[in-house]
């Protein structure tokens, strides 16, 4: 039931690590593109617009900040579709920040020296050394800016990860072995409690995703907490008609057995540790 | 203020007391020297010293515990820690427990006099600061 979330630096070998783990532990590799595909398939037109819109967002903060919440909910929901089954290695830039600090997930960052990254960029993108260096620097800056905009944190902060590896002298197989060893420990095994927490998080996120995907409730900023099938919604005071729409949409989400609305509480978002 | 500044010096090395007594008497302090924590703490029960200068690494009891006991008994006393084995953890622990200052050995007596002058100032003994300036030939 291993879940590994890899945050990779530009051209740092993260894909290779994901491939190695996938092979050694029979983990399903998942990338950001897979999450976007899930959103497209499940979320409808509005959801697709949110995800596409935010891709162009980082330089126009005011225009796109209202999309940020919806984006995070939809992508979190997509990631949880994979993670709740276990046996997944996700590799991306900062996707691990979509989830709260779950005990059964190992959050890993992998980087290497600039010289090596430039070399990788030259090989992969068929660039000259100067072009590759420029490309790596720009990509680094873009990723840092993206994470700061979307998640409100600095992806270079080691406290956001459980383990940080440098490929300066460690090799991908060595790191892979270390991770495999760590995953065998009981801290990363699913327990009934961790499975229940995962199920509750998944249900709550599906409810939030349903609300942001529907044009009637997209703008309302209603959060959800779940325990078993019972869902508690937190959001602004609503008139009867919008409240009825919210309750109708939430009740239709598979797995929901009871719904309660607590007005006046701001919806909580736990996206970083 | 006519009262003299009373200073208790606690260090298990006799040479320290022998060197500090005249150095502090120079600035008008009444100095009592102790080489063991037990008798020093007993004396502190009898008299509320203005300033206690204590070593940290001693056999029977460490200076941090002496600090704790002094602070418990008389929080107004200014406690100055001295040690040859200072670490940042030790210095910050002493600070957290109410020590007035912390001096690493080896130090010049003038350094201690400067700290005592500051401590005296905080207690309302303003004259000690002026007396602490040494005579320059």
């Amino acid at each position, binding site marked *: 039931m291993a879940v590994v979330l890899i945050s990779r630096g530009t051209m740092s070998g993260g894909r290779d690590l994901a491939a190695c783990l996938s092979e050694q532990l029979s983990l399903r590799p998942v990338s950001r593109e897979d999450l976007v595909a899930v959103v497209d398939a499940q979320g409808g037109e509005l959801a697709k617009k949110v995800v596409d819109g935010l891709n162009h967002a980082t330089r126009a903060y005011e225009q796109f900040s209202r999309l940020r919440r919806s984006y995070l909910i939809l992508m979190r929901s997509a990631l949880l579709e994979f993670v709740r089954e276990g046996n997944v290695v996700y590799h991306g830039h900062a996707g691990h920040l979509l989830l709260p600090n779950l005990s059964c997930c190992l959050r890993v960052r992998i980087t290497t020296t600039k010289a090596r990254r430039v070399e990788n960029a030259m090989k992969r993108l068929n660039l000259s050394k100067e072009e590759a260096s420029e490309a790596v620097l720009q990509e680094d800056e873009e990723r840092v800016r993206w994470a700061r905009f979307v998640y409100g944190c600095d992806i270079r902060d080691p406290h956001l990860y459980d383990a940080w590896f440098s490929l300066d002298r460690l090799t991908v197989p060595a790191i892979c072995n270390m991770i495999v060893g760590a995953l065998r420990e009981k*801290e990363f095994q699913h327990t009934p409690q961790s499975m229940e927490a995962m199920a509750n998080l998944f249900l709550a996120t599906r409810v939030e995703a349903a609300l942001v995907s529907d044009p009637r409730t997209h703008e309302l900023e209603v959060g959800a907490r779940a325990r078993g099938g019972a869902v508690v919604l937190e959001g602004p005071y609503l008139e009867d008609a919008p409240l009825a729409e919210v309750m109708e949409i939430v009740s239709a989400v598979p797995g929901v057995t009871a719904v309660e609305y607590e007005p006046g509480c701001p919806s909580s978002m736990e996206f970083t540790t | 203020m006519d009262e003299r500044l009373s200073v208790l010096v606690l260090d298990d090395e006799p040479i320290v007391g022998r060197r500090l007594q005249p150095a502090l008497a120079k600035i008008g302090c009444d100095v009592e020297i102790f080489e063991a924590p037990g008798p020093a703490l007993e004396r502190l029960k009898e008299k509320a010293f203005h300033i206690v200068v204590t070593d940290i690494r001693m056999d029977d009891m460490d200076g941090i515990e002496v600090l704790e006991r002094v602070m418990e008994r008389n929080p107004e006393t200014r406690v100055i820690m001295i040690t040859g084995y200072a670490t940042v953890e030790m210095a910050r622990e002493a600070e957290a427990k109410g020590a007035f200052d*912390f001096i690493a050995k*080896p130090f010049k*007596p003038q350094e201690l006099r400067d700290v005592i002058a500051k401590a005296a100032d905080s207690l309302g003994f303003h004259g000690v600061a002026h007396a602490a300036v040494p005579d320059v030939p």
Partner: protein
Amino acid sequence: MPIIFICSVPFSGGERVAKSLAQKLGYGYMSREDVVARANEAGIPVGKLEVAMVKRPSVQERMARLKDRYLAVATATICEKAQDGNLVYYGRAGHRLLPGVSHVLRLHVLPEHGQRVETVMTRLKLSREKAEKFLRDIDGDILAWVRFVHGIDMDDSRMYDFVANLENLNLENAATALCGVAELPDFRPTPASQRAMQDRFLQAQARIKLSLDDRTADVDLTVRANDGVLTITYVPLQARAASLISDAVGDLPGCREIRCTMASTNVLWIQEAFKPDSETFREVNELARRWGAAVELLQYKPGDAPSDAVAVAVGRSAAMEARTGGVEDDVPEARPSSEEKSFQETLEALVHEGRSGGGQRVSGSRDRLSAVISPSIPYSLVVLGDLFLDKPPATRTRLVRELSMFLGDHVKAPVLSTADLAAKLHLGGREVARGAVAGVLVVLIYCGVFLWQDKLIDLLGGPAHKAAPWFAAVLVALMAPVIAFLYGSVLASMMKWLKMD
């Protein structure tokens, strides 16, 4: 097998990870406490450095030499224990002591905050608020220590091969994960890395001997070891110590040869008052760094009553002596003036950078100044800083220029004022614009020459030249210097940009 350095802050669990790992691997274990104990035994008062991190005076008084001695003892202690590898060391960025040694694994352990606070509350009997403050304070002190002693940011993850965050990974987990890495062939000692470690050991031992010997303790020396050959470089101002070096070092195991050399690149900086936080210090230090030069300070008071040159040395902290119990002699000493203090601080800052060439003070006429500057010292540059401070600006500029010309005649080195230094070495907006304009003109001239080369050839040696031979001569006489000037401007800007002085 590797030497594993685990770096962490106190009460983090890092020490337990280190001990657990040592036990699992069957390696030797050593911590910073062992190194500090060894340094204290050698009479080095490490506690003074520690307390300096807490009090953080604006400049670490007499700390630079103390730091060097401590680093030498730390390096020697670790090298001695790790002769065959197979060592786990727990401390603060200890891996920085062995640059060039490849069989070193660098690990950083990040603590779990909640657990850390609880540990401090229990162990030190502090309230939660005081425990939180205590941890903030010691973390700041240790960051300051690592920055001062090793010149790096301890929290920079790029300094490590692996960073373990104990918020989620437990201690045993982290230790287990590390076992696998320690067995990797990448971290096995090679003959080259063993050699590098022996050189670090030799260098450290030489440094210890030189700093504990009264004859050489205050001398600014650079010690390097390479393949068993010790090279000890002294600054020209302290050339008298050269003869004592070999004797002070004596016989060291593994040392094939001792070479004493005088620093060949020296910058003499003459100024009336020095400040280590001044812009001039930054510029001179940057230049010295680029050139690998030592910087000698000469404090000059023009117009004051003449004085003989007084050499100023950075004193070292008194050693821990049993006979005094750590209380130094109660000798009255004059409090230095703020100017003397600043001079000392600047000297200290240069020692800290490893670029001190010593210092001296002189006052009087410029002939007296010139007499103090030793003709036998090969200065690469003489920098005139802030002088004639009591004069109005225009007079000051004139006097500095006159002094510059005077020294230029008497000293075998280029003499620059600090204003000229900035102009010559730094690439500002104006220089970029000038270089760009010159570059465009050079290109245009080259294009012109090659586009009209037939006409030019005719003018220089063809029928047109025969008709008016004087014209070609005039043209060459006018154009050659213009092209040379433009070309030189472009090259000068490029060299400044490339920091090639």
